[in-house]
């Protein structure tokens, strides 16, 4: 159990947060809290509403009803203030393929208002850390997917946000790179960054401090992986997930 960095301070709160698209209730009154420094797993089948919930917290999507705060700011009123304090890595790869690694870092660092000195130093640090010193001036499109994903994560936390939202960050990545990616997540968590991550991989769920499992827009279970396994009388998170996901009636979209 990795709880050393948790202070009990709530950095994300959601209270009956709901999003409707017409008649369709994508997210149905979800309530939860995430503590500072926590690695919070956000699980659910495709179409369960994970991405929509995450987009509301990031200020990309306006909630229909309910309350939520991120980093102490209200998602309705202060969404632009929230944006300064969070990092976000979307499902779609979102670095500029026609810019080099360094140019991407400079651009994203720059629009978050980082100083030139900071950008230079941080870029050097990341490239060294990822052993990509020789790739700094290469166009992003020339790099393999695994590296791109690691770079995207580094760029998401480039401006040292308090919270980072990761939407299926390891989709389509090989097991070795997946492992390395999670090492990066742990390192970020160790320096106090709260991690909010969605995933399909149940082995990854085991790495989280707590996980919530969404079914048809609602949170059906929320606890630490070990407690969930006990509660559902299961040997692995896989079994827990299958038991819950079978209840789903919504057609996968």
């Amino acid at each position, binding site marked *: 159990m990795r709880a050393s960095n948790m202070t009990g301070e709530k950095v994300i709160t959601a209270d009956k947060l709901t999003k409707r698209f017409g008649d369709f209730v994508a997210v149905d009154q979800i309530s939860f809290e995430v503590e500072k420094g926590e690695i919070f797993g956000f699980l659910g089948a495709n179409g369960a509403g994970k991405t929509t919930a995450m987009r509301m917290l990031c200020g990309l999507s*306006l909630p229909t009803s309910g309350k939520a705060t991120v980093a102490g700011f209200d998602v309705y009123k202060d969404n632009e203030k929230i944006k300064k304090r969070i990092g976000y890595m979307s499902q*779609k790869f979102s670095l500029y393929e026609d810019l080099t690694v360094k140019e991407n870092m400079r651009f994203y660092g*720059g629009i978050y208002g980082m100083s030139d000195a900071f950008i230079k130093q941080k870029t050097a640090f990341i490239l060294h850390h990822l052993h990509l010193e020789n790739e700094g001036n290469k166009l992003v499109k020339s790099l393999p997917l695994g590296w791109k994903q690691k770079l995207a994560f580094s760029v998401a936390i480039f401006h040292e946000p308090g919270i980072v939202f990761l939407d299926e960050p390891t989709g389509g990545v090989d097991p070795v790179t997946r492992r390395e990616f999670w090492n990066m997540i742990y390192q970020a968590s160790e320096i106090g960054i709260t991690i909010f991550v969605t995933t399909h991989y149940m082995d990854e769920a085991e790495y989280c401090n707590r996980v919530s499992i969404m079914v048809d827009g609602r949170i059906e279970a929320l606890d630490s992986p070990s407690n969930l396994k006990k509660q559902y009388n299961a040997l692995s998170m896989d079994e827990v997930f299958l038991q819950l996901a079978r209840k789903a009636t919504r057609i996968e979209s």
Partner: protein
Amino acid sequence: MRTLKFLLQKEFRQIFRDPSILRIILVMPVIQLLILPWAADYEMKNIKLAVVDQDHSEYSRQLINKITSSGYFTLTSYSGSWEQSLEQVERDKADLILQIPLHFEQQLVKEDEAALFMAINAINGVKAGLGGAYLQRIIGEYNREVRMKWIQFPRFNPDTQIEVTSSNWFNPLMNYKYFMVPGILVILLTMVGTNLSAINIVREKEIGTIEQINVTPIKKYHFVLGKLIPFWILGLVVLTIGLTISRLFYGIIPAGSFITIYIFAAVYLLAVLGLGLLISTHSANQQQAMLLSFFLMMIFILLGGLYTSIDSMPEWAKWITRFNPVSYFIEVMRMVILKGSTLVDIKMHLLIMCGFAVGLNGWAVWSYRKRS
């Protein structure tokens, strides 16, 4: 301001790395301006004429000679049968039939009067109208010549005659290229401005980077300016290339000042870039954006006064042209280039264009949502 610097740096890097953008900016104006003005020719030449000569006289031959030597007509068939000529029209081998009836010469000499018959294929309205008019003028001239030869004019002409002499102001030789090239240049600028900005933003939507931008604390107007400024500069580059080509290949030297053209173009580009922006905020992908801008471009061109005069349009169409930015710029270009109009003369146009720029950009910024 610092944010804007980073945005501009990124945009310019991407533009210079994208060979297709550079191709559009450099090759498109060159090709369009070198080819289109020659094809979009207002003068009707090579009108296919079928002559039904049932008279076979000296006079009929003289008339035909006069017609074919005018340079506007090509004699495609010469026969004595009306049916045969009509068949030529049906097969689209003739645009006009001129029938010279039997005893044409006889009647002309004896009775001072003879009839001719002209049939026009009106499928192509412009060709038919102009062809008919040309032919009538030639016949009229021929008529005068014949009268001169045969009739001894009395000292005072019994008929009152008004002779019209005209001179063409601002384009004395009626060189239609002076008229077309500035217009084509406007269309070019509109296409480059609208498409580049629309496609660029929609592409960011497609590849998902716009979401990454939307999750940053970047201000909407920063983002929009970051997109506008690079394409605004590119638009002015295209204008410069276009004016250079007009000068080198068509010898078009504006009678007015380049400064007037550039000032108007600067505001005009803002307006069309705003339109591109607006298209991009309402399109989910590049296809939609292309279709939408293609649709608008058709209206802009056909209701812009490039090919057809706005003054001769029906009232409702004239009303639409007032909402067409292209029509203002085409008019301004022609005013400045041919007539030498100054900023004072185009004051109203400029004010209206400022309105377009503010309106379209305001609308675009307003409808661009960082949050859905």
